[in-house]
């Protein structure tokens, strides 16, 4: 694209199906940075 450069390809809406397993670390890990094995 000429006017827009996109930095990332992952979309949050795609994590609904396999997310929610709860095996991730608790955060207070910040919530923005940690991915559990299932979502990798």
């Amino acid at each position, binding site marked *: *694209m*000429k*006017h*827009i*450069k*996109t*930095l*990332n*390809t*992952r*979309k*949050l*809406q795609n*994590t*609904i199906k*396999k*997310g*929610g397993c*709860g*095996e*991730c*670390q*608790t*955060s*207070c890990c*910040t*919530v*923005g*940075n*940690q*991915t*559990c094995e*299932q*979502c*990798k």
Partner: protein
Amino acid sequence: MVHQYKNNGYNIVLDVNSGAVHIVDDIVYDVLPLYEDQSEDEIIASLKGTYAIDELKEAIAEIGELKEAGALFTPDAYEDYISECTEQPTVVKALCLHIAHDCNLACRYCFAEEGEYHGKREIMSFEVGKAALDFLIKASGNRRNLEVDFFGGEPTLNFQVVKQLVAYGREQEKVHNKKFRFTLTTNGVLLNDEIMEFANQEMSNVVLSIDGRKDVNDKMRPFPNGTGSYHLIVPKFQKLAESRQQDNYYVRGTYTRHNLDFSKDVLHLADLGFRQISIEPVVAEETEDYAIREEDLPQLYEEYDKLAQEMIRRQKEGKGFQFFHFMIDLEGGPCVAKRLSGCGSGTEYLAVTPWGDFYPCHQFVGNDQFLMGNVWEGVNNTALQRIFKGCNVYAKEKCRSCFARFYCSGGCAANAYHFHGDIKETYEIGCALQKKRIECAIMMKAALAQE
């Protein structure tokens, strides 16, 4: 919902509901606010005095393409989903063990009041800690990864029990097919070779408390006799950080109104050789002389900008370091369920007092309104548990329309309670700083992506 802002020469666009981040030129930046409410002809009529019509058409087409791909103006489809998540059975997967309600420092801002948490000095017995681990194994259901934080007060004042509990946990994880992730938070006063060796063997993360420059640290973190702690702890922390290969630890400090130029403290710690750093704003009653005030925000925004730019410079020179509040993973990061439900305090995560009582997290300890049960009877205040379980982004009016909601998860329940008496409220100064930090963190990704 789209959030757009300028920082350090970049035009940055965050598509909130997909998490997509775009760097755009001035044309797209000016078209975006009009895109959802105006037709192509109306947008062109509005902006043709500034940009060429062909360029405007190209920009509008590119925006349309990204919208079609689910990376711009993505609708919020998560509210029903989070309701489903809330209805799942509650399991506990993490405990914060208050190994010692006692401390050998007298930090001025400590919410635990020299480690006593508004109560008496006491240390946790092995029996109470063992019962806590047994409870966690049982209450965690099918969850395999469990976390136990050794916290205080100062946990090294009761180090023998820490060692006993880790040994017990390691035995039990084999029996029950669980995996314990232990962490230790210490002020460093009693840190010695034995504790370091043990921490390197057993602790997945170690948090080392220090506020930055010597005068800043010693003003807020003195011994009870008033002398400073900096000279004693720095060499120990440097040794421990090196022995952990500069990973899986944080030097963690608090900035207050007395050091609004906190970026200097972050850089001081980096110059001491630390590579994992967190310096965070104090949360305190407005009446305290060191409390952050709303009028301080412009200066704090500048500090975060300065820090971000300096971190980019150092990263490019091969001298980079991590800053906890700028850590953001645009390609990964947790799933939506995790982002919307937050830290899990009062549900997945509980604090345990030395005598075995449960509270939603360490910041509620000592407030009887928030007593949730104990290690022998389990969680018996299920009404309170339900309140915390319902405390997600959609339960907080101010969060529903906030661009940062997928990166902060609705903020800290304890801060909301302490400022407004309601865990579903928000702590405004905390929100303002969180939003600024997210903007800086995304800008850093943009700057480093250009390399």
